[in-house]
């Protein structure tokens, strides 16, 4: 286990030393202490590292992650795991706005609540939120899965494309072109797998699925009120 004191050694040193690690590195496990809400912690990693941040982080922690496993033992600021490609990110506390924004792959687990725009423009990432998500979550979500074990705020899935949304609690309102859809066996299987990987003991049958009505996919003047 390598320990890096962020307050003492600085951000540039942390990211550059993590970037210097490659597939075959022996220095796999890293612990970042004294993060003190710093921005851009452990961004752009592209090796199978295990990084634990001992405290809360600022903006864009684990941004563009590829292959690393990053755990935040605190809460995360805006844009945690934004544009993640692969690997996993676990936030033990709450996450601020835009969690998992535009992510292409990998798994983001938020053990607390996520604020507004969770999963905005997601492009293949899987996001599991143990608590609630704020308004406009999954806005323009293109692909991937968003699992919400609590409640969802206003305008869930507004202008959604092909992403799948699973919500166990209430949905305050659905956004444009987002509708409740049938939960078929293949969706139960997807959800079961995600819940297990997110260390959650919930029953897939308790969730409802939401997705695109596909009415806004091609411009139609008769839908102008929705644009």
């Amino acid at each position, binding site marked *: 286990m390598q320990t890096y004191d962020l307050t003492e050694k600085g951000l540039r040193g942390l990211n550059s030393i993590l970037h210097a690690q490659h597939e075959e590195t022996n220095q796999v496990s890293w612990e970042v202490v004294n993060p003190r809400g710093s921005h851009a912690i452990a961004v752009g990693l592209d090796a199978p590292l295990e990084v634990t941040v001992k405290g809360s982080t600022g903006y864009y922690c684990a941004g563009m992650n590829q292959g690393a496993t990053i755990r935040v033992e605190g809460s995360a600021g805006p844009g945690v795991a934004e544009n993640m490609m692969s690997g996993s990110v676990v936030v033990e506390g709450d996450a601020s706005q835009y969690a998992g924004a*535009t992510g292409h792959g990998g798994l983001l687990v938020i053990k607390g609540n996520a604020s507004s725009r969770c999963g905005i423009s997601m492009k293949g990432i899987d996001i599991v939120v143990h608590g609630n998500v704020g308004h406009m979550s999954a806005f323009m979500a293109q692909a991937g899965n968003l699992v919400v074990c609590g409640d969802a705020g206003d305008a869930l899935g507004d202008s959604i494309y092909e992403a799948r949304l699973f919500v166990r609690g209430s949905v305050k309102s659905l956004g444009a072109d987002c509708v409740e859809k049938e939960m078929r066996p293949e969706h139960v299987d997807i959800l079961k797998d995600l819940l297990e990987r997110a260390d959650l003991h919930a029953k897939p049958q308790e969730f409802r699925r939401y997705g695109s009505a596909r009415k806004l996919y091609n411009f139609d003047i008769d839908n102008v009120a929705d644009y």
Partner: protein
Amino acid sequence: MKDTDTAIPRTLPIQSATFTNEVNAEIRRAAATGIYDIRGGGAKRRVPNFDDLLFLGASVSRYPLEGYRERCDTSVTLGTRFAGNPIELDIPITIAGMSFGALSGPAKEALGRGASAAGTSTTTGDGGMTPEERRHSSKLVYQYLPSRYGMNPNDLRQADAIEVVVGQGAKPGGGGMLLGQKISDRVAEMRTLPTGIDQRSACRHPDWTGPDDLEIKILELREITDWSVPIYVKVGATRPYYDTALAVKAGADVVVMDGMQGGTAATQDVFIEHVGLPTLACIRPAVHALQDLDVHREVQLVVSGGIRSGADVAKALALGADAVAIGTAALIAMGDNDPKWEAEYQKLGSTSGAYDDWHEGRDPAGITTQDPDLAARLDPVEAGRRLRNYLKVMTLEAQTVARACGHNHLRNFEAEDLCALTMEAAAMAQVPLAGTDWYPGKGGF
């Protein structure tokens, strides 16, 4: 007495200056379809522009340099503020961002070939970076756009610079729409969306709002790339002084200011023609912002939007820009709107020089299309050669004017080299009206 002698003289039919034939045609089109007009290109209306400026040339007080004998350098370095590896260009003319999707694969390849042969950079667009584009571009700027279509960190690390796109001159404040007919399987895959559906490009970034967030976003991009490559911030010209100042404050190495003549692949005509500032009007406020912050030349200014010739390049540099970017002109050099396709333009209800339905994917020149048969019409090697030639000519023209003004480097142009032909141009460019030492706003009125 003949009847004609007693006939009452009739007034001639008068066309309205308000309801012109073009306006009436648009009203009829709107009434028939119920949807606004979408098109490509930039503003077509006449706005004050570089043609309204003249160079003064050498005189008793200044002496010129000898053409063909005395050297006039053209190089420029972009990204000297924070980047470990600034971009060194042979000429101060770059290729603006245009997407694979809006343009065909061969067209993107041709842009890379032409730019590289001329010693300059080209730029990706919405939808990400294609391997062909990277391979044929010696210097490639990677656009970081609100949609994040095709955005991936491997491409980010392959880029020679990153351009955070806040807006563009054709539609400041607006997103984009790539209509379904241009969404081929490959374009769809790159954008993670189904084939054939309209692809909306967001108007603002999904994970930051405002200049304070932008500063943190730039920090993240720098950390991911280990502070190696320059980071540009591109804005559509609306509030050039404040936008430039805020981009500098956010940590930009380069500010790209795109005027309303700058093109787009597909936007509402009302947006193109009625939102934004003419390119001529945005340069001096941007330069003033850089000067006020004491970073003029440390943070480079790239100006785009309707640049057509070496004279335009020279005038932009004289007003304080470090470089320019071209888009529409590059496409024309490659063969866009060429009269040789006139018969086909006529079939599409247009004519060469006016064809702007780039969003429909039926471009006879094979440039703004994803139709394989049409795209095959463009030979990327030949189109690249034409672009290189055009860039060389623009550079030679700018050098010619520079020598006449007594400059041994294009960067030495200055506003004092210019005068304006109209009051409007004098006010916007803040150079004297021809034959005077005054421009509107100078001296308090």
